């Protein structure tokens, strides 16, 4: 059994700060689009969800260290997201075809 952590990669402070800066920038962007682009409607919702997903990916890859960890965590994440996408697809199929 493994008695200590064997970490190959240590995230640098600079990288974490850069990640934070990117996330803050994306937050400002999404708020800006929502507040000043109110008449775009569906497009604003799509943009908001798109930006949220980019932010989620940034948090996952850098803060949660998925980028540097073993492939297995990314693989399992893909399985979970596929499962959710399947649920989403089934629900959309149901409600949009009524």
């Amino acid at each position, binding site marked *: 059994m493994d008695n200590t952590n064997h970490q190959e990669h240590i995230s640098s402070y600079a990288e974490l*700060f850069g990640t934070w800066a990117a996330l803050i920038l994306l937050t400002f962007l999404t708020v800006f689009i929502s507040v000043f682009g109110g008449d775009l409607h569906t497009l604003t919702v799509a943009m908001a969800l798109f930006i949220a997903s980019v932010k989620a990916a940034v948090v996952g890859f850098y803060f*949660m260290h998925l980028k540097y960890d073993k492939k297995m*965590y990314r693989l399992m994440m893909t399985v979970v997201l596929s499962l959710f996408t399947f649920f989403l697809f089934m629900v959309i199929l149901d409600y949009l075809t009524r």
Partner: protein
Amino acid sequence: MNHTFTLPNSGHNFDAKASKLGMWLFLYTELLLFGGLFLVYMVYRYLNQEAFLEASYELNVWMGGINTVILLTSSMTIAMSITALQKGDKKLSVTLQWITIAAALAFLVIKYFEWGAKFEHGLFPGMEHYNSLPVGERLYYYLYFFMTGLHALHVIVGGVFIMVVIKKVENGSVNQKRYSLLENSGLYWHLVDLIWIYLFPLFYLIH
């Protein structure tokens, strides 16, 4: 005869890989829990588009935005505390964890004022004004309180988790060589952040 059962490495049951994998498995179930709620939101929003839009104007974008910035910043500080411990700087690691907890408290205080304003307007499910609203708006507030409430519960749990880790870093059982618990509390905290990243646009920014 005295039979004592001893594990192969008694007293040293530390398995970094298994511990992290376990945490991730838990986080996957959390994602599906909130995922289900997002599906509920999607369906009701699709069926009550105008009402959801109308109700969303009641929320304060700036308060939600400030809370987003607070959570993102706390995510950075907890990630940095792991780096600090990995580099052997125990003091900095603990300081960064306290900053994360302070951010959690700030988030909850802002949430308290936000919810308080809704209560004053009688928008909590069951209140008189709430009962007089059209169905779509009632669904919106119901989902708002349930989803942000469940998220706030996660913020509290995350904060307590980090406090436990601080204790363990201070007494040395979580250290430069064994930091799995800190890493796991970080993963949990990032999940809290991750969910808010979706809650914020869906409730505050949809207009």
